[in-house]
């Protein structure tokens, strides 16, 4: 298959076969290919007797989904070139496969054989688990040697027993046929087991009571135990059926001579039970071991858990109080710095827009009153002609801090630079981007869209108290939520 005959090689062989000149053959072959192509284009089919047909197959358009985007796409229909060999040519290759199979049968076992092999493996594994080794192998190997041996014994010792055996055999064979029909669809391997114990067990018992008991014991156990795990529900019922016929053929044996064959079956069932009983004592032992250990471990655990909790509490308390301490220290500093402004703090919290306007109105005179203070930054920054409006936002930030530290002004006006958002401004002035709502609240009238602030708009940034700035404060949380709700309502309108 790896080899490939090229165009030139093909031509060479044709020249050698036909006896025509190389030129003739080459022109013929080129023309042949061209004719095939043109035939495909015009008639969509080219039939070459002795080889096969080249044909255009139309593939219909079909719907599909773009894997990346999930969009529905229609893959357009197209035509593809196909080749179908002639019937005679096809047969040549069908015959060819037989040769190939003979050559390499080892390469691939047939699927059914594989299934059979797997079933054999599983049965073997189960047999190992079930304390009786080589169950799967036993039935096939034991079958043939046992029966002739038994027959010989019977012929030597008792003719009477032979007759009885003959009478028994048909009885035994009848149930044999029934299980085969049931088991065949399920698994091909298993049916052998229920069959054999029936026939050999009964005859062996009368002849030699000692020897047969041993083979009898494993065999009936074998079919019963492995079957349950192999296939869960369906196989159980048919195999229960073959088990009961085992008892049936045994009972006719009883009148003949011995009750011995019946006895070994009962101990077998008994032997199976002890395997199940051990699990019950095991947990009792476990309980005995566990009870004394528990308190010991608890002490260790308790100490460890308490230590961990203490550590966590300490760490949490440290972090928690660190913030409060810093806040407290700041407040103390501010209190010492500015006593007058504290009175104005409650006015800073305006909920409604009207309140904002009122606050702004109130704040303007306050600014006028505190003119000397406002002028201080002007003197500091001499380059800027007008302090209030055209101050770039980067420079007012330090100004603002100074003002905050020195005297708490209610409002500062800034001009928005290109690409700045309210959240960025909030981050800069308040230290938290979530507080942008307060800026928007103060500029509701001048701003249409809080998400898209155009360059050059003048914003008034209200001063916030430390309580308002603290995002973890539940009051500010509620406030932010309320404002966001209101803004979203406005946006929808």
């Amino acid at each position, binding site marked *: *298959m790896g*080899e*490939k*005959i*090229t*165009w030139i090689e*093909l031509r060479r*062989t*044709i020249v050698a*076969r*036909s006896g*025509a000149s190389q030129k*003739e*053959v080459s*022109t*013929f*072959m*080129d*023309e*042949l*290919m*061209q*004719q*095939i*192509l*043109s*035939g*495909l284009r*015009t*008639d969509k*089919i*080219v*039939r*070459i*007797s*002795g*080889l*096969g047909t*080249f044909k*255009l197959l139309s593939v219909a358009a079909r719907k599909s989904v773009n894997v990346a985007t999930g969009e529905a796409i229609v893959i357009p229909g*197209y*035509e*593809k*070139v*196909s*080749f179908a*060999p002639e019937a005679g*040519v*096809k047969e*040549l*290759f*069908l015959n*060819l*496969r037989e040769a*190939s*199979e003979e050559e390499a049968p080892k390469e*691939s076992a*047939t*699927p*059914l054989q594989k299934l059979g092999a797997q079933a054999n493996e599983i049965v073997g594994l189960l047999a190992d688990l079930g304390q009786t080794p080589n169950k799967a192998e036993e039935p096939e190997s034991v079958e043939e040697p046992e029966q002739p041996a038994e027959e010989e014994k019977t012929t030597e010792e008792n003719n009477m027993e032979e007759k009885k055996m003959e009478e028994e055999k048909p009885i035994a064979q009848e149930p044999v046929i029934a299980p085969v029909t049931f088991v065949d669809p399920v698994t091909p391997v298993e049916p052998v087991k229920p069959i054999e114990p029936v026939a050999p067990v009964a005859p062996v018992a009368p002849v030699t009571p000692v020897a047969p008991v041993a083979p009898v014991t494993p065999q009936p156990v074998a079919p019963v135990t492995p079957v349950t795990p192999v296939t869960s529900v369906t196989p159980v019922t048919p195999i229960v059926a073959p088990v009961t016929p085992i008892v049936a053929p045994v009972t006719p044996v009883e009148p003949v001579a011995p009750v011995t064959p019946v006895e070994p079956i009962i101990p077998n069932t008994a032997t199976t039970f002890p395997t199940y009983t051990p699990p019950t004592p095991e947990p009792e032992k476990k309980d005995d071991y566990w009870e004394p250990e528990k308190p010991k471990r608890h002490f260790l655990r308790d100490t460890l858990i308490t230590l961990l909790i203490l550590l966590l509490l300490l760490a949490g308390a440290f972090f928690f109080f660190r913030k409060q301490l810093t806040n407290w220290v700041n407040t103390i500093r501010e209190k010492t710095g500015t006593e007058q402004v504290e009175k104005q703090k409650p006015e800073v919290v305006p909920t409604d827009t009207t309140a904002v306007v009122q606050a702004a109105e109130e704040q303007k005179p306050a600014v006028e009153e505190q003119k000397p203070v406002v002028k201080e930054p002007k003197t500091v920054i001499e380059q800027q002609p007008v302090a209030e409006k055209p101050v770039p936002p980067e420079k007012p930030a330090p100004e603002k801090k100074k003002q905050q530290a020195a005297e708490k002004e209610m409002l500062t006006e800034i001009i928005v630079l290109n690409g700045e958002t309210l959240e960025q401004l909030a981050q800069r002035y308040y230290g938290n981007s979530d507080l942008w709502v307060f800026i928007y609240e103060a500029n509701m009238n001048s701003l249409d869209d809080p998400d898209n602030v155009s360059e050059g708009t003048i914003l008034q940034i209200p001063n916030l108290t430390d309580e308002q700035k603290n995002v973890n404060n539940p009051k500010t949380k509620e406030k932010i939520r309320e404002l966001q709700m209101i803004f979203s309502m406005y946006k929808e309108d």
Partner: protein
Amino acid sequence: MLTKDLINNIAEATSLTKRHVSDLLSVTNQVIIESLMSDKAVSLHGLGTLEVKQKNERVIVHPVTGARNTVPAKKQISFRPLATLKEEFKKQ
């Protein structure tokens, strides 16, 4: 297009007799099939390649009865058109 038309067209185009063309055609068929049977792919200039593919034995299930049967392993001739030819017919 049937074999008769093919032979006629080739004979017209190449100024060879029809008998000659048919002989050559049968020889080419023989050569192609023999090389395929010896597990060698044959490349057809401007068309593509003819090759033999091994199909493994597989189990089929009868949809109604549920009976399991095996399809025996076999070899099939398959044609793989050239990429250019494929594209040409895709556009149409």
